[in-house]
């Protein structure tokens, strides 16, 4: 893309194309922020499964704690061993 004699690199972020899709931000394997979650499908000692519209996201690991939950938004902390989508 050439503009007034200089090359401008367009920054591409996933959110540009996702619109109202749920967003998942993972920090290391200790914290994850899930925006756009509808409900909790499954919750036990080592597993939390969230419904995010027509699919699900599942966090597996140890000491899983939902730090905050409300307004289609959840903060999950713990030691994640696996994050899977279904």
């Amino acid at each position, binding site marked *: 893309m050439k503009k007034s004699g200089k090359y401008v690199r367009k920054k591409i972020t996933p959110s540009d194309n996702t619109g109202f899709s749920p967003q998942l931000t993972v920090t290391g394997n200790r914290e994850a922020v899930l925006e756009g979650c509808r409900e909790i*499908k*499954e919750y*036990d*000692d080592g597993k939390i499964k969230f419904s995010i519209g027509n699919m699900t996201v599942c966090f597996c690991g140890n000491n899983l*704690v*939902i730090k*905050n*939950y*409300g307004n289609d938004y959840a903060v999950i902390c713990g030691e994640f061993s696996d994050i899977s989508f279904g």
Partner: protein
Amino acid sequence: MIIKFLKYIIGFVTFKAWGGFSERFINLCEEEKISLWNIKNTNGEITASTSINGYKRLRSISKKTGMKMRTVKKCGLRFWLSKNRARSGLAVGAVVFMLILITLSQFAWRIEVVGNTEIEDEKILAVFEEYGIKAGAKISDLDLKTITEKALADMPDISWAKVNKKGSMLCIEIREKRKIPDIYDDSVPTNVVASEDGVILSSDVLCGTEEIKVGSAVRKGDLLISGIVTHRDGSEELLHADGIVRAQTKDTFEISKKNICLYSLTNYKKRYEIFFFGLKFPIGVAPDGDLISENASYLQSGDSVLPLGVIKTTGITFSENTVAPEEIQNLICLFKCSEHIKDLNETAEVKSSKISVSENNPDYSCAVYSTCEKNIAELKEIYTEKTMDKE
């Protein structure tokens, strides 16, 4: 941190729920807009925290989902206050303490002076006190910049000043002016003359013509070093004569009982004042007398002097004592003589002193005869008239 503090102020409840559908329980909470945090599931038992209002609404949800609930912990100011309702005095005390703390922190507790070497602290503090900077003054009411400017105008020996706030202390930082050194003016033609009678011991001529010899006796005003120098060609030149001429001199000091006036203490009054943040609360009537002195003692915390203390004012009245014992008067005469020798030692080298007492005289008298060595050189200007050369 702020959120944690707000949560504590509002109050929250930590609870346990077990036995039913935990997922449905959490989803229903979300639907009912009951915020939950720190949700943890251990062996089918949920532990979570919620607000006080939210906890009240949880009962119906737990019934719907078939869960049993139990409170684990109640946190927050509201619970603390209700728990300590019987100890309401404690809360009132805490509030009063905070109010006192806030109120007192608005006043200057201490004034400190930094950077002065020649000028005394008291002098600087007195000037600043005139413009309101004193212990107990309300800091917010002080226009420090204007006060500093005014104080600087009053103190010509200070080149720069600044008042800094350090918590409840005001620090006056100052810089003193550097004194201009005295310039030795050697352009004026002078002679060196004797300042008193004596026998010359040594002479060190710095400039001019020596007019005396070692061992010769001189009287006060005699010429020692001349400022008029005659050259080989017969021409004369006026110079600024200078030198050190040491001579043996004699000093006499006499004192008699007549010259000594004794006073005795006739009245002694004192009064105490309580000093609290610049305000003085007197206890009793102000004392009067010939000599009024003030002695203040302030409360100290470490190195800091607090604006709380007691001021003691003393008033002493004297009257002339005409019936004082003779021994005391005689002793005072001797004391005055010894003081004179001490003073003499500061200006000259005292070689020998002899104190003579004439007791036969009804007016007891003392005399000190001292032999000293000192510089008797004294500069005396040679008066000249300037004449215009006619071309």
